[in-house]
């Protein structure tokens, strides 16, 4: 069996340990993590290796408001690989002021189970 190594940069603190995750080809859950100086680094490497998650933040078009764009965010983190596609999908969203912080703009974005909400109030003007 051959082993496959992936490299990560730990973001847990400014030391920035270089982490390695080694996985047996075809092996199931058996992975080896190296390079961490503390438990956070180990947990982070496993999380990044198995299911990296990211928060989505972008803007959508808004009419009759102070600015032409409204900042929006995902209510929870989403699988990392979905981020570009979600941002593309949000380009066609258009809302009208007033909007309140936390208003749900897209309930279940791309079917991933996470809502996109307004990240601020924007009054009508």
């Amino acid at each position: 069996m051959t082993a496959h190594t992936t490299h990560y940069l730990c973001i847990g603190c400014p030391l920035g340990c270089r982490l390695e995750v080694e996985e047996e080809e075809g092996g199931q859950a058996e992975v080896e993590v190296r390079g961490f100086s503390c438990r956070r680094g180990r947990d982070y490497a496993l999380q990044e290796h198995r299911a990296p998650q990211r928060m989505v933040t972008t803007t959508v078009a808004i009419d009759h408001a102070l600015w032409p764009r409204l900042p929006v965010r995902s209510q929870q983190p989403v699988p990392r690989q979905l981020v570009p596609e979600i941002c593309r999908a949000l380009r066609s969203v258009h809302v009208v002021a007033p909007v309140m912080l936390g208003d749900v703009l897209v309930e279940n974005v791309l079917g991933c189970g996470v809502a996109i909400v307004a990240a601020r109030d924007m009054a009508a003007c």
Partner: protein
Amino acid sequence: MITAQPRHLRRRYDVVVVGGGPAGLEAAVAAQNAGAAQVLVVDREPEAGGILQQCIHTGFGLHRFGAELTGPEYAQRLVAQALVQGVDIVADACVLDVDEQRRVKLMTTASGIATVDAGAVVLAMGARERTRAAARIPGTRPAGIFTAGLAQRLVNLYGLMPGRRAAILGSGDIGLIMARRLVLEGVEVAGVFELMPHANGLNRNIVQCLHDFAIPLYLSTTVVEIHGRERLEKVTVAPVDSTLQPQLAQAWEVPCDTLLLSIGLIPENELSEQLRLRIDPATRGPVVASTMECSRDGVFACGNVVHIHDLVDFVSAEAMLAGTCAGRFATAAPAPADNVRLLSGENVRYCVPHTISTEREHTVYLRTLRPLESCELRLVEAEGNVLYTKRLRYVFPAEMVTLKLRPAILQKFHGGTLRVDLVPRAFPEQGDAAEPSFPLSAPDKRPGGEP
């Protein structure tokens, strides 16, 4: 956003705050809590909130609110808090001058020039972006060259794209954040070019803004020429040697129509200079006492106008102190004076505040001149006696060091100046249990210990 433009400006306020960013808003509320009845915040933008309104990414407020907020969410909490407290906020109003009698002259679009008297003034004008390096790059002067923060404003507030293919000079956090932002908006990013051999931004941004999108980061590399007549067409980049001299023989060209500069911020101190406040050449902000009072009575300062902060949570903490002391000054209950001057010693670029008191507790912020792994922070008396030491696992120029000083530490000290040194430790012991202090990046649990 909730706004409450007051109908009439009063002739006199207990405290007038210049700038309605996080520093100004926190200071205003703290001043009110400290007894100032009438507090006015003036901001030249159409709404309060400062730079936070364009920082739509998350990463704000872990410390202050115990939640990971976006910039606009953080701003909204502060504005709401200020309005609930009855602080007056005027937007679209630019402060033109503050004089020695603390008369604040401001200009509003609605009613022209007005002057208000202030019991105390808090300066919270924030920072502006550096552009100097751009002016020094040889070549033509075409359109398409932006500071990263300006591009951020265009994209996030106006929905305008700066171009189609961008190169980014400097690896500061704003540049890294913008690299990701542009890619998500369909703009191609050719790469980030950093003069120094290390990245300037947080590892978190290196990973989540560059690695996630396969954007290359070229360390020890800089832009040496700009090409294009009307519009930027390409830049020439070259690696630099250990003395930062470009190696032109190894230069290559990067086609792009946009160049973003992310090369740092400078405190915005036009008003401070007009008022002839003492300015620290290292921070480029006013010299401040432990009360955040400047070199003129009743003038206080906080936030990026004093020194550049990495995290808004630290801005909040500093502004609460400034606001409290300004409120007390205005209501005639000022804090006792300082009796110790802090000097920046070995490896220390600056310390803020510049003076402290042996009788009170202080938070001192300082920056290192160079990255050091395993070092000791020392407080040294004029005669060379080391008064206090603290082990640090590492220090980085991009990461502010915070030092909590309690009166107990200074009890046996009777001198007038204390030097702050960062001394590398020759033989780091194995299994060292010294705790690094990074309350913001690791609010839940600290690393260390487990090998």
